[in-house]
């Protein structure tokens, strides 16, 4: 039956031959429609292209036939094939006098060409002629084409004519002229900036369609600059009023809603105009209230208006009553069964909480529902919302959700986006280092190579620096738990390279630090890492450095290292590696192994990745070498400038009082002070070849030399970009250890450990203060002015748990275990907890803040505590505060408890 109908229609159309669709074309469409596979379709289309190519070039194709060919080209191009051979014919067709053909020509041209195409220049003339045409339909065709085809350079060619058309008697033409000018504004705002008054005049056009076209243009212009349009608020409001009160022509009704598209556009414009402008906003309150009252929420379009209203209300100067209405609408959206409305509701909620954060609490269940929804779009939108409302007290739950989400998607675009959000949240709100490391590991594991390298460096730095305070115990706990975790992770197949790099570095640095693993075991693991990724040179570099370090540590501790067979073969292979970097590393490794115990201990000291390295900028240790060379008759060093004879004057004048103006100088320097880069390069090559032999020389000379060492500017000489703290680049641990090898001297060790704490840590000090300040602020906004100390949040949470959302809790109430177990399906918090293998934060807490535990109920002392911690902390979130928080949240909110108690969702909502 269905088929019969189809055939009937085809026959009808075939016989009509509407617009000259010939039988051939119908046939083509039909065969493509019946094609069983993509390949078959391809074949048919290619054949069609061939035949078109042939026939279109025949001389004297009748015009009507040509039009048909061009339509067929359009069809072919629509299916994704190249029809560029026919473009010129479409251009030709626009010259035709027959309107029908002209219109088809324009249509084809607008579909084929974009505004930068070479053929455009051929059309300009036609367009100019057509814009002057008496027939308004011709005018319209040209204007439609103008919108698509005119680029910045050709705007002046048509602009005057189009401005004239703004006053055309036909409203259709006026409207299209406005749209064309709008397009010009988008292309190049300066060309039409003098026309703003003309636009405003058209705003009062008798015909609503012209007015609505002007609105589109106005919106774009206001988006760029609000200022010149502020005076329009009153007239726009009155237009909106007319629209709302049904005073526009009936034909603009849409599903019995008066001119909804106009209303929405106006609301958008008003939102822009009212942002941060109290007077303008107050003008709007009336009409906005009116819309909220009148709009019917049963139809889609009504909801569209309501949603737009909410958006406007959240961006203009707020009015509490209207905001209340907006919240009600949002609630209605969220409660709806319609997924579209839920989506809009989530979006609206995201806007509302920027103004009134507390309104989120009423919608917890709805949001959780959306998060659990099978609809991916909705889920993603909800994650967006959660991202916006993440606070220190709910970060764990939210991050866990996000990680779970990226685990299940394959779209790289969103994987990258969401994982970068996870990283951002984790960096901002991490409750503990332990948790941070664990989260990062997960992100690496899932998103792998999509994560920027910087994050890996940050993570390594965090592990290296630990909590950043004097508390070495906590640090080593952190490290050994990191080692433990990584050894665990290594068992999984297919890890991304970046994670393996981090693992190699951590194992090399701390693998044997706590003595629970033997060197052989770690080296074996490292060799396994390489085996999984044979082609990855960068990773190999990390591994070689790690092995070097472990061997050095062992030797320094007075033990002999027997390399296991895999390791030996791995190393043998690298001696002949194509990568010079790898070769260098392996030769260095070789050289290090041959050294005696003390030297090794000084060049690769245990746990020194955070130590500062002093660099002898003047290379004074080479003085004796240079002097002896000069004594042996070498030519003195000339700086680059001098050698080129440029700037000879200045350098000579500064270096030598006897400065002559001759380009060459023949007397030697008294003393080669401050060598220029070229000299450094010469010695540098020396230096890395037999770094070890030279070692004694410069350790002596640098200890003899009393000059203070400066770090800045050194990288230029050595071409190593990373090891000065001045450089903003995150420290690359490998380079650090390398440079330990090269330049840390016997004398350097103590001195550097003295100085070390200062430069790298100052960078991090600021964020910690910021974070604690922010936490305070957030807490304050969540729980009234009393907050600002960590205990208040969980306590308040607890209170609400008990009293089920009745009254705001008193922050002074002591923490106690939450009463009810959580719903297993939603937030299984027992699993979400960071599994801390060897350390219980509560224990740590006791160690760290023993004073505090007695005073747990005293708010003020806690505030002080936290404030102190903020001040004292040298990096990251202060460990005391975070541990405290960690333990409290364990006790209260996050402990496995609760049945179907909805208040546990407080984790998401604070």
């Amino acid at each position, binding site marked *: 039956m269905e088929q019969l109908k189809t055939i009937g229609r*085809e026959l009808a*159309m075939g016989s009509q031959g509407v*617009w000259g*669709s010939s039988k051939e074309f*119908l046939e083509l469409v039909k065969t*493509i*429609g019946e094609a069983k596979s993509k390949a078959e379709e391809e074949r048919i289309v290619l054949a069609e292209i061939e035949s078109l190519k042939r026939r279109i070039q025949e001389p004297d194709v009748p015009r009507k036939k040509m039009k048909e060919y061009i339509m067929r080209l*359009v069809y072919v191009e*629509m*299916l*994704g094939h190249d029809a560029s051979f026919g473009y010129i014919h479409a251009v030709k067709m626009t010259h035709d006098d*027959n*309107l*029908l053909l002209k*219109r*088809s020509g324009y*249509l084809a041209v*607008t*579909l084929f060409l*974009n*505004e930068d195409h070479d053929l455009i220049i051929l059309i300009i003339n036609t367009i100019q002629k057509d814009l002057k045409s008496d027939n308004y*339909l011709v005018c319209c065709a040209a204007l*439609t084409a103008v*919108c*698509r085809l005119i680029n910045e350079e050709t705007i002046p060619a048509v602009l005057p004519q189009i401005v004239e058309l703004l006053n055309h008697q036909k409203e*259709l033409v006026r409207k*299209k002229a406005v*749209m064309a000018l*709008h*397009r010009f504004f988008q292309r190049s705002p300066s060309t039409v900036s003098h026309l703003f008054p003309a636009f405003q005049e058209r705003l009062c056009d008798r015909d*609503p*369609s012209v007015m*609505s*076209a002007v609105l*589109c243009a106005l919106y774009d212009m206001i988006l760029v600059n609000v200022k010149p349009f502020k005076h329009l608020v009153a007239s726009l409001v009155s237009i909106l009023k007319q629209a709302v009160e049904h005073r526009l*022509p009936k*034909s*603009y009704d*849409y599903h019995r809603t008066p*001119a909804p*598209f*106009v209303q929405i556009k106006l609301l*958008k414009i008003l939102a822009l105009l009212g942002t941060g402008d109290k007077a303008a906003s107050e003008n709007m309150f009336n009409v906005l209230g009116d819309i909220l009252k009148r709009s019917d929420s049963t139809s*889609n*379009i009504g*909801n*569209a208006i309501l*949603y*737009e209203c909410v958006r406007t209300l959240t961006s203009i100067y707020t009015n509490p009553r209207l905001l209340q209405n907006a919240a009600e609408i949002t609630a209605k959206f969220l409660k709806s069964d*319609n*997924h*579209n409305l839920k*989506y*809009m509701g989530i979006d609206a909620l995201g806007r509302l909480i920027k103004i009134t954060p507390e309104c989120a609490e009423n919608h917890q269940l709805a949001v959780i529902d959306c998060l659990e929804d*099978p*609809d991916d*779009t*909705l889920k*993603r*939108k909800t994650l967006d919302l959660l991202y916006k409302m993440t606070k220190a007290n709910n970060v764990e739950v939210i991050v866990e959700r996000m990680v779970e989400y990226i685990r299940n998607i394959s779209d790289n675009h969103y994987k990258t986006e969401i994982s970068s959000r996870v990283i951002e949240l984790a960096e901002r709100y991490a409750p503990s280092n332990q948790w941070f490391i664990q989260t990062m590991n997960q992100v690496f594991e899932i998103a792998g190579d999509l994560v920027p390298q910087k994050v890996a460096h940050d993570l390594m730095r965090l592990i290296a620096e630990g909590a950043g305070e004097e508390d070495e115990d906590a640090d080593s706990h952190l490290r050994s738990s990191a080692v433990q975790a990584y050894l665990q992770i290594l068992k999984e197949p297919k890890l991304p390279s970046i994670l393996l790099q981090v693992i190699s570095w951590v194992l090399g640095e701390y693998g044997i630090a706590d003595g629970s693993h033997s060197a052989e075991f770690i080296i074996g693991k490292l060799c396994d890492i390489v085996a999984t990724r044979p082609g990855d040179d960068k990773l190999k570099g990390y591994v070689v450095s790690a092995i070097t370090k472990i061997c050095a540590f062992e030797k320094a501790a007075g033990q002999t290292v027997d390399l296991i067979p895999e390791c030996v073969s791995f190393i043998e292979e690298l001696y002949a590696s194509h990568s010079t970097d790898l070769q260098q590393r392996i030769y260095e490794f070789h050289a290090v192994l041959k050294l005696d115990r003390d030297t090794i201990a000084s060049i690769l000291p245990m746990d020194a990745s955070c130590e500062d390295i002093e660099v002898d900028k003047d290379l004074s240790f080479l003085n004796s070498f240079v002097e002896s060379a000069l004594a042996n008759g070498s030519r003195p060093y000339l700086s680059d400038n001098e050698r080129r004879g440029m700037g000879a004057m200045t350098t000579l004048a500064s270096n030598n009082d006897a400065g002559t103006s001759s380009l060459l100088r023949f007397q030697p320097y008294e003393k080669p002070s401050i060598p220029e880069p070229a000299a450094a390069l010469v010695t540098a090559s020396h230096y890395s070849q037999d770094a070890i032999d030279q070692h004694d020389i410069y350790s002596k000379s640098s200890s003899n030399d009393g000059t203070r060492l400066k770090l800045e500017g050194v990288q230029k000489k050595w071409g190593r970009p990373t090891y000065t703290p001045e450089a903003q680049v995150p420290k690359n641990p490998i380079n650090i250890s390398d440079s330990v090898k090269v330049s840390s001297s016997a004398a350097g060790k103590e001195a550097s450990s003295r100085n070390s704490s200062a430069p790298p840590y100052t960078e991090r000090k600021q964020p910690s203060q910021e974070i604690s300040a922010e936490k305070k602020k957030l807490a304050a906004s969540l729980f009234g002015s009393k907050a600002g100390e960590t205990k208040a949040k969980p306590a308040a949470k607890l209170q609400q748990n008990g009293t089920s959302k009745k009254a705001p809790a008193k922050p002074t109430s002591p923490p106690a275990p939450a009463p009810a177990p959580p719903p297993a399906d939603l937030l299984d918090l027992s699993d979400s907890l960071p599994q801390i293998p060897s350390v219980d934060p509560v224990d740590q807490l006791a160690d760290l803040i023993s004073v505090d535990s007695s005073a747990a109920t005293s708010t003020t002392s806690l505030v002080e505590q936290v404030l102190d911690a903020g001040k004292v902390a040298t990096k990251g979130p202060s460990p005391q505060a975070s541990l405290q928080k960690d333990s409290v949240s364990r006790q209260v909110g996050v402990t496995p408890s609760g049945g179907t108690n909805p208040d546990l969702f407080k984790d998401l909502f604070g």
Partner: protein
Amino acid sequence: QIRFVLLISRQGKVRLTKWYSPYTQKERLKAIRELSALILPRGPKLCNFVEWKGLKVVYKRYASLYFCICVDSEDNELDGLEVIHHYVQVLDRYFGNVCELDLIFNFHKAYFILDEILIAGELQESSKKSVSRVISAQDTLVENAKEQASSLSNMIAQATK
């Protein structure tokens, strides 16, 4: 602002495309492929929006055809949905009970109508009446042209007899 309009059949065949922002042919194909993979499998009860590369695609299914428009992420999705519906209503009004076949065989007409509704990615005409008026004005012109042509050919035919 609307980036592009796409009509895809349930089998993933393209019925109409209109690009308001510059896309190369390659990007177009990729977009069509990705979007049909994204949209076609979605169930009927899910919401009509899909996020795609920082933009949003609003789609609606009418019988076997998916109408998709790609809008900026800040645009009002419900509004987009109604733009689609508006277009479909105009099509319906023009063709009288529009079906997929009408669009297949008269795709240029669908384009003309679209041109009257959307220009450069903006909704230009929200009154159905005026859209139909313009289109029918064009059609009358066409009819006139046709009559002229046929009368001309008649005359020629008679003259050559």
